[in-house]
């Protein structure tokens, strides 16, 4: 239900209060992430124009669960391919030269194609699902984050704003902005 609420609440999502910092240097952003995480701020949102390994390592994410859905989708497709062809062969038997009604080798082609098809489609569905489910709504965004700037958003309460801004600036943020709810 949480997912449904998130989808429904899309536009009306409350803006989260906190601090947004922009970085032009990747090592500065990585320093800031490490320092924030060391201080216990683990709820960060990091924006980047392209995926970056240093940022990923600093955030210490576990492997995305997308792969599980890819596997399930692929296996479902494979099973469906064999089940459909075999069942349909017996539903209207075409007996040619007394040979077996459902012959597996030609059906491998169908099962293979459906494995790929279902695997790919379930992967995309999984990305949409996990991005919404595990994402944070209401985090502020800046158009430069898709261009050449790395952004870090730290959701926090007003009394923490000062020290966090200090930390971000000393790491090398080019710009720090406060977001109120």
């Amino acid at each position, binding site marked *: 239900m949480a997912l449904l609420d998130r989808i429904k609440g899309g536009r009306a999502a409350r803006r989260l209060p906190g601090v947004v910092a922009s970085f032009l*240097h*990747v*090592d*500065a952003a990585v320093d800031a992430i490490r320092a924030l995480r060391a201080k216990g701020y683990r709820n*960060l*949102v*990091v*924006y*980047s*124009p*392209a*995926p*970056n390994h240093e940022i*990923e390592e600093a*955030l210490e*994410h576990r*492997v*995305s669960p*997308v*792969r599980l859905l*890819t596997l399930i989708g*692929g296996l479902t497709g494979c099973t469906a391919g064999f089940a*459909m*062809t075999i069942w*349909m*062969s017996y*539903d*209207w038997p*075409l007996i040619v030269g007394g040979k077996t009604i459902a*012959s597996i080798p*030609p*059906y491998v*082609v*169908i099962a*293979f*194609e*459906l494995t*790929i*098809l279902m*695997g*790919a*489609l379930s*992967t*995309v569905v*999984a*990305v949409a699902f*996990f*991005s919404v489910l*595990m*994402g*944070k709504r209401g*985090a502020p965004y800046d*158009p*430069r*984050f*898709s*261009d*050449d700037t*790395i952004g870090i958003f730290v959701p926090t309460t007003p009394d923490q704003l000062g020290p966090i801004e200090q930390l971000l600036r000393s790491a*090398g943020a080019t710009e720090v902005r406060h977001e109120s709810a």
Partner: protein
Amino acid sequence: MAVVAQPHEAPDVHVIDQTHAEVTRDVVATLGPPSRGYVLLLFGAVSLFLIGICTFLVLLKDGLGHAGYNPPVFWSVYITTFVFWVGIGHAGTLISAILFLFRSPWRTAVYRSTEVMTVFAVMTAGLFPIIHIGRQWIFYWLLPYPNERYLWPNFKSPLIWDVFAISTYLTVSTTFLVFGLIPDVAAVRDKVSGWRRAIYSWSSVGWKGTDNQWRHYSRAYLYLAALATPLVLSVHSVVSWDFASGIVPGWHGTIFAPYFVAGAIYSGIGMVLTLIIPLRRALGIEHMIHSYHFDNLAKLTLLTGSILFYAYAMEYFVAWYSGNTFEQTTFYRRAFGPMWWAGWSMIICNAFVSQLLWFRKIRTNLTSLFIISIFINIGMWFERYVIIVSSLSNDYLPWAWDQMNPTWADWGILLGSFGWFGMWFLLFAKTFPIVAIQEIKEMIPMPRKRGGHG
């Protein structure tokens, strides 16, 4: 130290000497107002497409009698063109998926345009079996759906495998293309204003480039590439089995699957060259796609062209070595029969012309590459025409032998297919980033406060 061949250019020549902001700026600039040349090309494409539509309307009204079918040849230009367009698609998937898994950095600059080519080529190809079946309005009989006669498709037939292979290929390559576009569309969204911003906002499906989004996205992209990879090899194998599982002399060869796959990639790279050599100039992205990329594309062409050369030689050798008179007659007539001109066009354009690419001067000269790419396109169309038509025209019963000659209905649909493909490709190039912004940025090291690059 052992002697190692030195690359002729610096090893990191594929790294584009630009900042992230410049990449966004240059790619967004390709979406600006169209030039006169673009409008003329689009006009040409739409005109060809209209020729195709008019031809199709006549076929719809009167039936396939207008096409040049003549017994015993009942598969001709439409099936030839179907195989031609499916083949074109394969180079795109090779470059976008297989070279992604191989971590070939040079693919980044060209893969979006090849992936677009794949989707539209397969989309074009998919129309041909439907045109060919004659009663186009009941094409859905090919699909397994519950019907009142309780009939199901015959899954032992290669033609049904084809239905599944082509529709899977179209779906997966479209998914792969659209999925790869999402971050780029978001980058365009953040640079434009007004109604364009509204459209790009909607089509970027809420992409913000957060760590959470990238984390799932990068993984998923890897899996999509891994899933698309076997399709490169399987789809054209299935297409080749449409022929190879028939017992027609000239078709019934075990070499068909690898032969067709190599031919598909060869023809596809030919089409890539035909498309991106003019496109890079028209869109002002010459600094992103340059001689390094063309050299690599040409090497792939040389590799697949040489595999084709081997396959052609092997077909003739096996025909002779088999001692089978029907097989021998078919291959004798390919070279010296009534269709000798088509047979030699195929051998010269594919096997011989590709061998010119051994020379680096030719590989890095865009004019010569463009001319070679036109030869490849023509040669590969003729290859399928020769395999299909010449094999059918002389099968086991000499008294039934006959030739077919394509009519206006065949040429009209063929021209229309080029127009239809060109129209979509041109429209895409002005609507969406034809160079992958996000992947190029991934290749460019981000600036560091402590100086230096990554």
